[in-house]
């Protein structure tokens, strides 16, 4: 299947961000082609992700020393050290094919709990959150997945 990016209604999309103008709201969203993670390893080598469509997380190797996210707006978000990490992208796609990226969710595993770092990817006239804000919550359950990446911690 051919991928569609769902951005045809996003106006003035440049390297930083683009805007969606509707009857009820105006939304500014990151440029999904220019947001990615940066995993640093104990030997100093770095692995950069690709973008929000093809994140590159599945191919990432274990043993991460530190994890960071770079947004298209230039913001760098540093994730604290955990025993393991998992990365999830939250999107909405309407039946007409329009798409909005809401957040990147990084789950950090501790001994008996999971901390969720939600990096906001859009801002509008209603929500109090802005692009690059991080909402930290504690998850009630540990998701079983082969996509957890262990740290060097």
């Amino acid at each position, binding site marked *: *299947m051919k*991928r569609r990016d769902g951005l045809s209604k996003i106006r003035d999309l440049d390297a930083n961000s683009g805007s*969606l103008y*509707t*009857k*009820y709201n105006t939304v500014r969203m990151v440029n999904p082609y220019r947001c990615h993670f940066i995993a640093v390893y104990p030997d100093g080598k770095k692995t950069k992700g690709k973008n929000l469509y093809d*994140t590159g997380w599945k191919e990432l190797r274990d043993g991460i020393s530190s994890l960071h996210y770079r947004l298209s707006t230039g913001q760098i978000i540093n994730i604290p050290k955990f025993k393991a990490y998992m990365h*999830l992208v939250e999107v909405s796609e*309407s039946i007409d094919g329009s798409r909005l990226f809401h957040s990147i969710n990084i789950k950090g595993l501790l001994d008996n709990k999971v901390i969720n770092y939600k990096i906001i990817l859009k801002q509008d006239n209603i929500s109090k959150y802005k692009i690059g804000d991080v909402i930290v919550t504690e998850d009630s359950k540990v*998701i079983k997945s082969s996509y957890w990446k262990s740290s060097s911690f």
Partner: protein
Amino acid sequence: MSEPILSFLYNHGSSDATPYGGNGGASAPWQLISVTTSGGATPDTLVFTGGGINAFLPTPTATYGAREATIRPLVDALTIPQAYIESEADVIMYNVPLAGKNTNRYVFGVYIDGEITSDLYLEAWDDNSFSTTTSPALAGTSAYPYSMINAIRTTDEGADDDTWTGATYSGTSRSNYLKGYDSRVRLAGDDSTINSTLYYNMYVSLPYDAALFHGTPVISFRYLYV
């Protein structure tokens, strides 16, 4: 490629015994709902109509742009009887004969090419900003203070009977009144789905105290992926 590709489908046939057999494209009697592309193609439109002076539009297709304006009921709420997919490309409206307040299972579908690592949430919003639910169709009325859009997950089975509404169904969360983030339907009932089709049915109910309004809420799908 980590991002899953979603294909939105509807059953244009009249038999409820035919699950989708394709891998993202049209596969009779299932047809693909065309979406917006960067090339500028106009997407298809989901239309609920009927219940007016002439009662019904023709089937299995109707003239592009046709509408049978629904007459507001004197009491209670009226289930708008017909659903169509209006195709800009084909300049025609295709009936979705199985849609409605019934026990049908294979009505609308979403084929997931790839993997989602959450449930697939069916939602309704005012528009593609996915941020407000104030339009009359979603806000409801004084007598019916909930969304007029009723939906139910039929991935595993159809509704038990033809009385289902958007209220929580049979003690489960299979059905709901679609209204934003807080009132939605989980289409998988599971935390991940790979290369599968999920199914749902939906209808619009017009309450007697609805004011004359024009609104074009959007049906959307929210999910997570790695």
